[in-house]
């Protein structure tokens, strides 16, 4: 509207490309925009629609957009492949990933996978995690039927019984699949496989040239996401206002599932958005053990700079008390 135009004169324009068509998962960005959180930090945020994780990462590396979100393996692999991405804040915790299995499949742990079929999203960077988990569980990978299925249809295929298990981000799949099929979650950590979660990312060049703006953006985003988790109905309303194709209950279910895991201090005492060196090293170890990354190929200090996090979070900034009880 015209109010924004007047204000945007003194705001810094920042663009973010999403990784999927809009989804409840990304409500935090719209919430922050709608509530004026970005504006408060002197930022005019432009949210660009996205089609895939890699397309968004490519766009960030190219400088076409300033930010996106991406998984830890994706950041690492992109760096090796020549895209100098940096991870700024961990917005989704790593524990959200693993196998979703049908309750009727007879799978209770990673070691039960022999003779079963597992759906893996084509084009995702989850395969190395799966390899590591299978190896750690001592299962012969040749005895598992791995089926690559396009991201657009994994939930559908799994919900309709197309396989015994699906490798996924639980909050992405569970709320949609559960009404159709009884499911259990088996996380990677149950196989002893360590993996950080999803990061707010940018490019090395952008961060070094816009240090202050980056810091403000990270701060605004963490504030926005935490606020959204706190005020779910508003966050969803903000998102639906932009996306008439979405149904409120779908966006809500996905968002709620993410929110249940996303806010406050985790078991290690890290704040929402923050990450630890051990966590990153564990992730590298997992990728190295499954052969997709060479030891020392990624310099963690430059790839995951903490500078923008140093100012954050002030104790008590996020009040997630209402949410923590839900999980």
């Amino acid at each position, binding site marked *: 509207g015209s109010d924004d135009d007047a204000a945007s004169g003194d705001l810094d324009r920042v663009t973010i490309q999403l990784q999927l*068509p809009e989804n409840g998962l990304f409500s935090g960005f719209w919430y922050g925009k709608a509530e004026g959180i970005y504006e408060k930090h002197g930022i005019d945020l432009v949210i*660009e629609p996205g089609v895939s994780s890699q397309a968004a990462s490519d766009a960030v590396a190219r400088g076409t957009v300033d930010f996106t979100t991406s998984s830890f393996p994706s950041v690492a692999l992109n760096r090796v492949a020549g895209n100098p991405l940096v991870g700024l804040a961990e917005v989704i915790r790593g524990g959200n990933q693993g196998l979703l299995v049908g309750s009727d499949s007879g799978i209770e742990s990673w070691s039960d996978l022999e003779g079963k079929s597992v759906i893996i999203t084509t084009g995702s960077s989850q395969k190395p995690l799966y390899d590591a988990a299978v190896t750690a569980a001592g299962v012969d990978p040749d005895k598992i039927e791995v089926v690559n299925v396009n991201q657009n249809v994994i939930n559908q295929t799994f*919900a*309709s019984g197309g396989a015994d298990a699906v490798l996924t981000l639980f909050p992405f799949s569970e709320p949609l699949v559960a009404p*159709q099929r009884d499911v259990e979650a088996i996380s990677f950590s149950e196989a002893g496989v360590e993996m950080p979660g999803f990061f707010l990312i940018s490019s090395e060049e952008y961060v070094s040239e816009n240090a202050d703006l980056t810091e403000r953006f990270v701060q605004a985003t963490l504030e926005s996401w935490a606020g959204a988790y706190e005020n779910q109905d508003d966050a969803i309303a903000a998102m639906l206002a932009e996306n008439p194709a979405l149904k409120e209950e*779908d966006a809500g279910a996905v968002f709620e599932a993410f929110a249940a895991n996303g806010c406050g201090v985790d078991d290690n005492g890290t704040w929402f958005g923050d990450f630890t060196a051990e966590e990153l090293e564990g992730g590298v170890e997992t990728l190295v053990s499954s052969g997709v990354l060479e030891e020392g190929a990624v310099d963690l200090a430059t790839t995951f700079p903490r500078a923008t996090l140093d100012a954050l979070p002030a104790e008590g900034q996020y009040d997630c008390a209402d949410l923590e009880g839900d999980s």
Partner: protein
Amino acid sequence: MRRSRGRKPLLGALGVALALIAWHLVTTVGGVQATVLPEPLDVLRSLGDNRQLLLDNVGYTLRTILIGFALSVVIGVSLAVAMRASSTVDGLLTPVIVGIQTVPKIALLPVILAWFGIGQTSGLVIVVLITVFPILVNTRLGFSGVDEEFRSLGSVMGGSRARTFWTIEVPLALPAIFSGLEVGMTLAVTGAAGAEMFAGSEGIAFVMQVASSALRMDMAFAALTVLTVLGVVLYYATTLVAWALMPWTRGRS
């Protein structure tokens, strides 16, 4: 003959009705889950409920299809003409064009996105990449089917090569060209849909994509139905144009 003309639309409607009944039976007594294939009646209801959303998006898709198709016709026919006119051009381009046709377009998606961004331009590129080949191949077929003697006729009557080509050869090739356009039109629809699903942020197939990733299958199939009807209408529009442009072939089939 006269009787069968009047029967044709009726038969077509009957065919569609039979297909719908089969769909209904498969979902009700056939035991196919609603997450895979929703019941046609639910889809119908969803069509009503999402009327506005679908209408808002159909224009975008239609634009991608029509502009992309028009570009494909221009490019496909021009290439066929150039390849007809010069065997050097023909020799140079044939393997490259076949290669481009064969490459799975989805593998080129990152390249297309890098160059043209997410949105309608990429959509058009994808539509053209998919649509141009059958148009090109059928146009070439049409030209090669033109009796050598007609070309002789044109030149001995004082037509320049170009004029003979446009006045005599092109109309003779038209029936074959239009077969290419009919296939091409359905591919343009497929291409536009694919582009919206994999490289888009708007349009009917985008709605379908969003709905189906939320497992809202009734809504996804409502969008799919709109897309299919759009495709069928555009296909028949193409055959109608052929019929109107080529009265001399009407008796034939």
